[in-house]
């Protein structure tokens, strides 16, 4: 039953092949039995899940229930869940139980989806290996000596290990796409503003975007349809109607113009990964698409610009964790300064502290122009690169990551090597564009991801493009479980 896709679960529930309580119970049992190997969940909520499942079964019996009614899912522990501890992977919030739901969670709850639990993640979503979590690293179901990627490593691993058919995730610099690539799952980072950020604990507000990780594009379409939409509680959410993303699947892609940027096939790219990506591009040609060379000349500036802007925003976003109102507070503070210094020093891990320091530095008097302002200029240039490319093409394709999953501990001591994991994904965040990763092969029995970057609000087209590929290939069906 755990092998079922979301689309299959939806049909199974409606055809009374099984109930929501049954599949929910089955997956909870699997999590209980297997997650010790992966550590993909921080919190499992069996009681609540079974209650939700029972309620969903009633709705399904009554008829007229939304598509996702009764479908069990997992939420990244960055999304606030009313009454359920939301840690953001940090000691700082180990004791934090929000009195409200994130809009994304609320949307799924309203749709009748079932929450299995909260998935592990890099602390405050800062990391590309899931090793910065206060709750320990997540292990890649394809090889438990390898990282699953990050920061949404728990969501990706849970889906790859068939502990959940789909999960929510967030992507600030590649945190949906990179773990999706490393775990053979399909992940979509929507256009900035497509999915509400309310209740999603902020890392870098101008870059953060929630999205789904699932087993294929069709499932991702189901999840995105429920997640997306304008939210009056998020001033940056887009005031645009949400299409039914599943309705646009199966469209013909003959004549589709696929941009292939030379910059995404540089020396940094593992040749075997390059070969899998080239194979995928050939598959698209067979489907009638046309490959067009495009240039994104400022690609090499994306990582440096990102590592100024994201930490700068984070340095302010994380100031609220001061031990005064909630979260970790040090024992017996001597005075205010001691309260701040020890609460934050104890509550935040090394990588989070590093980024707060980097961001604080970048915004400091005398450095602001050289760093923050310059990075914003670069950001505009990167956006401009894409605008020009999309004058000629419908989507852009390339690798999601420079290499397959790396070993646990391999890059932990070398932040810059870790940051370069996101070399192909960061630009989409800086430009606010939607990006996807889908499985396109294996290298040494480790998954490789094909990245699709779409134009603004072009998620429906991207999902169709991905779905067409998955109709003619089986890579996404390869299972670690």
């Amino acid at each position: 039953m755990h092998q079922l896709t979301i689309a299959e679960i939806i049909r199974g529930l409606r055809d009374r092949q099984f109930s929501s309580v049954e599949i929910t119970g089955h997956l909870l049992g699997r999590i209980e039995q297997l997650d010790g190997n992966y550590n993909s969940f921080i919190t499992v909520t069996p009681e609540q899940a079974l209650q939700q499942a029972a309620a969903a079964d009633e709705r399904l019996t009554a008829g007229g229930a939304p598509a996702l009614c009764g479908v069990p899912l997992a939420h990244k522990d960055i999304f606030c869940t009313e009454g359920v501890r939301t840690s953001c992977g940090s000691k700082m919030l180990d004791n934090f139980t929000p009195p409200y739901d994130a809009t994304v969670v609320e949307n799924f709850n309203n749709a009748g989806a079932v929450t299995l639990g909260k998935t592990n993640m890099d602390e405050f979503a800062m990391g590309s290996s899931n090793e910065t979590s206060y709750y320990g690293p997540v292990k890649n179901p394809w090889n438990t000596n390898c990282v699953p990627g990050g920061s949404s490593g728990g969501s990706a691993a849970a889906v790859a290990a068939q502990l959940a058919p789909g999960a929510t995730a967030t992507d600030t610099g590649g945190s949906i796409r990179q773990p999706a690539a490393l775990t053979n799952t399909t992940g979509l980072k929507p256009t900035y503003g497509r999915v509400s950020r309310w209740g999603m604990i902020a890392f870098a507000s101008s870059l953060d975007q929630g999205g789904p990780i699932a087993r294929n594009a069709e499932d991702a379409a189901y999840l995105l349809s429920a997640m997306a939409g304008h939210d009056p509680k998020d001033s940056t959410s887009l005031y645009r109607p949400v299409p039914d993303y599943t309705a646009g699947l199966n469209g013909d892609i003959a004549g589709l113009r696929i941009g292939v940027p030379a910059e995404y096939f540089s020396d940094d790219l593992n040749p075997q990964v390059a070969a899998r990506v080239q194979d995928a591009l050939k598959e698209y040609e067979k489907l009638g698409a046309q490959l067009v060379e495009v240039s994104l000349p400022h690609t090499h500036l994306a990582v440096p610009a990102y590592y100024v802007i994201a930490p700068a925003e984070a340095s302010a976003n994380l100031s609220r964790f001061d031990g005064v109102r909630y979260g970790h507070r040090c024992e017996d503070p001597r005075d205010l300064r001691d309260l701040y210094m020890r609460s934050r020093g104890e509550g935040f891990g090394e990588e989070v502290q590093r980024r707060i320091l980097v961001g604080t530095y970048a915004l400091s008097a005398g450095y602001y122009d050289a760093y923050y302002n310059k990075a914003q200029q670069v950001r505009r240039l990167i956006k401009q690169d894409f605008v020009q490319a999309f004058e000629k093409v419908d989507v852009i394709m390339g690798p999601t990551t420079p290499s397959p999953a790396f070993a646990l501990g391999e890059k932990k001591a070398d932040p810059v090597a870790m940051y370069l994991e996101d070399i192909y994904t960061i630009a989409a965040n800086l430009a606010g564009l939607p990006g996807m990763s889908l499985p396109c092969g294996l290298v040494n029995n480790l998954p490789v991801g094909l990245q699709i970057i779409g134009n603004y609000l072009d998620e429906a087209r991207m999902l169709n493009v991905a779905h067409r590929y998955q109709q003619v290939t089986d890579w996404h069906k390869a299972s670690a479980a």
Partner: protein
Amino acid sequence: MEWEIVIGLEVHVQLATKSKLFSGASTRFGAAPNTQACAVDLAMPGTLPVPNEEAFRHAVMFGLAMNAEIGRRSVFERKNYFYPDLPKGYQTTQLAQPIVGPGEIEIHLEDGSSKKVRLHHAHLEEDAGKSLHETIFETHGHGMSGIDLNRAGTPLIEIVSEPDMRSAAEAVAYLKKIHSIVTYLGISDGDMSQGSMRCDANVSVRLKGEEKLGTRAEIKNINSFRFVEKAIVVEAQRQIDLIEDGGSVVQETRLYDSDKNETRSMRSKEVANDYRYFPCPDLLPVELSEDYVETVRSRLPELPDAKYARFQSEYSLSAYDADQLTQERAVADYFETVAKESGEPKLAANWVMGELAALLNREELPIERSPVSAEQLAGLIARITDNTISSKIAKQVFEAMAAGEGDADAVIEKRGLKQVSDTGAIEKMVDEVIAASPAQVENYRKAEEAKRPKMMGYFVGQIMKASKGQANPQMINKILKEKLDALL
């Protein structure tokens, strides 16, 4: 040496919106601590700000009233610093692109002269919460501090002037002008005692004729007009004494101690805060259309300057009276009602600025809660003009009205204060006083013609006393003169 004082003011005005700048929580003053702070105000994880449209409208109204440029595109920034009453660890404010740009207003001084003061800009920002110390010792234990976040997120406009003022009196006149503009617009209650309006004064001194500005000190959080005046006076004197003694002024933040009437340095340990401003990524730039601004403009009420000019032309008031009566919209409205109902603008002005102001001052009441309504005062003035009572008796009637004894007519009736204008009755009183004052009559007879009118004062006084002040003074004068002159 002749010194010149240079003053620029930063005035924080709390806007009278129902909810906060970025959340739906109420802004009402005086609720129990932390009962008006929602998840956004508490900076709970994942919460986001949503701008309050009403606050923008208020800020635009203010900008238009200040003859200022309106920032068609304004940007919120984060001002970063740690403090327990600042839940997010940053204040959301505006810096490079404020909602209100440069402008200019005219202030009216005591001597009847006017002066222009330039506005540098005004920006929207959120207020912080309040730290409670001594006040919670009893309930929470000695040495404890509490945080009340009811005020956190309350919308403020910070109004920054150019350093255009040259005396404490000018600074107060400017502050009063800001006060009258915001209260006229109804965008703030302007109540300084509740912190709805707070003032920081930048004060420096220089030798007269010098063009370069001296080093300034910033006096923080002055909370009354009177203290603004006193703080500036003592701070300027401190700087002058310092320089004359061979020292120099340090740029710093100072606090005014009203008990000791002195300013003293604060935050000396925290040198040069770096607030690391940057545009708030949770809020998009706000763009205002020309239509929007024009709509707001078309709905502005009559402003103090326009009223000031109109009161002079329509009611023939002096510049001074017009200024006094237009500083507060409620006072202007009160006066105008009295003037119209009584048809006597000059008398109305005298009464409003005289007896009424004294009464309100004594009772510490705002004019909105005056025990004597504008209609009642107009009724009293009508009794003066129709000679029912004299001005002197009117004051007595007014006090009775203030004490709740009813309208002028009721008081006059009940207390029997109607002016005696009956010729027979007055003649009788005159005769009696003349008969009882042979010595004074003799003196009068002997006196020179020119001195006699003055000598009548004694008799008038006696007659008024006999009539308990109710005899018509013009009639007393006429009858008395006839009778005395008949004795010559």
